[in-house]
């Protein structure tokens, strides 16, 4: 899908501060000079094309009492598929990537408490037979940027 100038304008407007007003799409429409229905239609198309992954809230998990960590494992090549399948079952694991490193599988984990994190990691180790894992919770955040210039 090719984005035109108006699509980009709309994305710019709804990326970080989606209007919290009774008729948000009408407000956006007024800013870009379109009809409300046309704005809804364009957002719908970008959502369907996957350019917009989701239109909603991104939450601060810490402020809601969740704790998170980044983990890296050394997974033998022949076990990657099996291990990835097991990892995918945990709802608190939102991202899992293969990377070109001896620690080749990297995932993020969110849970309600440190104890829950420990339980899940132990569960993963016993189910996968993996022995080498790095548990790397963040100690300080210097930057998280979720907005991109268009």
């Amino acid at each position, binding site marked *: 899908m090719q984005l035109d100038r108006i699509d980009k304008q709309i994305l710019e407007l709804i990326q970080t501060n989606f209007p919290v007003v009774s008729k948000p799409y009408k407000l956006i429409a007024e800013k870009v000079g379109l009809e409300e229905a046309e704005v809804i239609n364009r957002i719908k198309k970008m959502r369907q094309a996957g350019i917009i992954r989701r239109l*909603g809230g991104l939450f601060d998990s810490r402020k809601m009492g969740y704790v998170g960590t980044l983990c890296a494992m050394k997974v033998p090549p022949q076990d990657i598929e099996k291990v990835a399948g097991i990892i995918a079952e945990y709802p608190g694991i939102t991202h899992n990537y293969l990377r070109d490193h001896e620690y080749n599988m990297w995932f993020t984990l969110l849970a309600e408490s440190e104890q829950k994190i420990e339980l899940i990691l132990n569960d993963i180790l016993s189910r996968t037979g993996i022995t080498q894992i790095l548990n790397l919770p963040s100690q300080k955040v210097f930057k998280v940027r979720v907005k991109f210039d268009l």
Partner: protein
Amino acid sequence: MLNKLEKQIIRELQTDIPLVPEPYRLIAEKLGISEQELMDIITKMIDRGIIRRFGAALRHQDLGFVANAMVVWEVPEAKISEVGQKMAEFKEVTHCYQRPSRPGWPYTLFTVVHGLNKDECREKAQVIAGATGIHKYELIFSTKELKKSSMKYFID
């Protein structure tokens, strides 16, 4: 920390805002509150930072940011704060975290560096190394996305 109504609202907002002229009215009706009450609570959650960002999450591969590298840096404890802040200033750096070192794993600062391609990520890492004086680092590229989903809170 969060009351029952706030948790219900979070459950609604972690999926998609409805594409109808009055989306808040629709959600409010579902929760049995007024549209105004819902908008007030959302605004408060944004002010409190519970909602970090409210809007469209974009798939950035489609917007020209085709490559990114996790760059891990071996930074001595005493310099972490200074170096972390300096790295965070680069616009190509979207994430910068301090994490603990482990036996055989000396890296203490983690950044995500974006570029148009892998070489650009490498060049940018070199620039950051020059600017911070941290020359022990590794670029770790992802080769496959196995899972990427939005976190679902308060589902049980």
